[in-house]
């Protein structure tokens, strides 16, 4: 277990990322408010704020959800993925502004505690067995927003790497998959809420298209991975499996292969091929989609480094990836299907295809 955190500086790229984010969020917010004022001259400031923050947050959530699969199709989207947690935290604060103002505006200063009222204001309509059956037009929609806010809060609060370490990568990852639950809850929140009041078809259209795009991108990315997972295993000899041609692993680059149901990252450095686990110790990024930079395997997601020969991060860092034994024979890469114990050095295997 590592005791250090990567002190990633607030460098130029990071500053530009955040500046761009702030400017874009401000532009979206202002364009919604500005057009609202033109369209609906009698609208109150509170309504503007409630709607503006909600629409901005939901649009941002779509961007957040789209970046992941996009980066799997085209690595050029990786710069957007790199600081995705900044998008997430920003989205949470927008959602918080919306939630607080909506709760105060619609529930405060009455004969019931606002937090209770959010859940119970028209509780009769929870009863889907009442006459008329389930009616989305009447079913309470605020609780779905509140549940989404709780999830978004937990994710924003644990977004720092400190929590990744202390909660354990598996639990952390599971918690952060909660973003899909939050997205689902918000679809219901909006479908049972604003869509029951607004008459323009633009609202259901945008919400539906957004869902189709997000679901489509994820399905396509999953299909791509499944294809990789199904890729034919080659011959097997003394526990070594033929996984690909050596020429498919380019100098300085990585390649992901399957060996007995696990993904393994191959890298070629100075005419040698090395193999490590494909799962980054940071947030489980696909190491094999990275490259070798300054002699180190570099994860495409956030740039964590590992030495090809032993899978160890360069000092002072202490993360380690499993290594796998490799043989290159007659232009084919053969991989030992079981990983070495952590920290095992492997010299890699020389490629003689020059």
């Amino acid at each position, binding site marked *: 277990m590592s005791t250090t955190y990567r002190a990633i500086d607030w460098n*130029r*790229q*990071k500053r530009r990322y955040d500046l761009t984010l702030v400017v*874009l969020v401000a532009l*979206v917010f202002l*364009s*919604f408010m*500005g*057009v*609202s004022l*033109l*369209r*609906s001259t*009698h*609208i*109150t400031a509170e*309504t503007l704020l409630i*709607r503006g923050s909600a*629409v*901005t947050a939901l*649009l*941002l959530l779509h961007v957040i959800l789209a970046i992941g699969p996009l980066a799997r199709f085209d*690595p*050029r989207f990786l*710069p*957007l993925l*790199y600081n995705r947690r900044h998008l997430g935290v920003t989205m949470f604060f927008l959602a918080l502004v919306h939630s607080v103002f909506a709760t105060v*505006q*619609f*529930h*405060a*200063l*009455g*004969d019931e505690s606002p937090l209770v*009222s959010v859940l119970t*204001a*028209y*509780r*009769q309509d929870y009863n889907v067995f009442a006459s*008329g059956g389930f009616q989305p*037009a009447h079913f*309470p*929609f605020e609780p779905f927003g509140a549940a989404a806010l709780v999830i978004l809060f937990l994710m924003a609060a644990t977004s720092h790497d400190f929590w990744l370490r202390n909660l354990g990568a598996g639990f952390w990852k599971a918690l952060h998959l909660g973003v899909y639950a939050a997205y689902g809850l918000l679809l219901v929140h909006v479908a*049972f*809420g*604003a869509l*029951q*009041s607004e008459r*323009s078809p*633009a*609202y259901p259209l*945008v919400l539906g298209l957004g869902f189709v795009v997000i679901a489509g991108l994820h399905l396509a990315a999953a299909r791509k991975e499944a294809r990789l997972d199904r890729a034919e295993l080659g011959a097997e000899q003394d526990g070594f499996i033929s996984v690909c041609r050596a020429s498919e692993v380019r*100098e300085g680059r990585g390649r992901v292969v399957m060996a007995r149901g696990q993904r393994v990252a191959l890298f070629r450095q100075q005419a040698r091929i090395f193999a490590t686990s494909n799962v980054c110790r940071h947030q489980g990024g696909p190491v094999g989609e*990275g*490259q*070798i*930079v300054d002699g180190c395997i570099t994860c*495409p997601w*956030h*740039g964590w480094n590992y030495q090809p020969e032993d899978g160890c991060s360069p000092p002072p860092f202490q993360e380690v990836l499993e290594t796998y034994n490799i043989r290159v024979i007659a232009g084919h890469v053969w991989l030992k299907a079981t990983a070495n114990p952590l920290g095992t050095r492997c010299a890699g295997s020389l490629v003689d295809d020059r």
Partner: protein
Amino acid sequence: MNDDFYIGYLEKAPSSLGRWTRRVVLALGVLVVGLAAMLAARQTPAEPGTFEFGIQRTFEGVLHESPLPMLQSVSSNGVTTHYLLVGAGKYGLPAFARGHDGQRVRFHGSLIQKGDNVMLELNDEKSFTPLGPAASDNAPGREVIGEISITGELVDTKCYFGVMRPATGKIHRACAVRCLSGGVPPGLLVRQGNDASVVILLAGLNGRPLSYEVEWAARRVRATGKLKSQGAHLVLEVARLSLVDDERD
């Protein structure tokens, strides 16, 4: 070698990648800003209304508690106005103003107005001053219009007359439940075509407040009873009130 590979902790990304990223971000920005503007442009416009929030003026007149709390006030040029009365927040007539039926009173309050429907928020207990019994010619002045049966949306009059804009439909339903539950007079919003609408205040029979289901707020209800006018307000003394299941009338 590492031509297009992005590493976030380095000072500068490769320039070809920088160009691509700028283009993608620009396209994404235009798309998202455009969507936000389009959604804003497709909103149902809020209806007009006034709430003089934070502004208090002095009002004086005869207080009638039933069938709905109103202040009957005569201006210096002899025009009589009937103000519907509510409390601060999501409440009806506050306790300090009760028990003065038929008396002259003076208080500071804030004006709420939508068209001819005027309402006062009594938000200053200290200013409330009973001034004794009203002169005998100050009858409430209600005129019977007739028996009607009519369908509309159950709204809370405080929000609808101007405190919240918009103040109808599902998005506002919880708020309307809170207001009605706190004693804000219920109204029946009846629309005609796209633009015209009228609010009929709902009262009980024989001067009693209406007893009804507050969770019917923002839903369509059918009310039957005797319609009267009181100043510029229409008041229905409701004999029967029921939920209309078919939302389209």
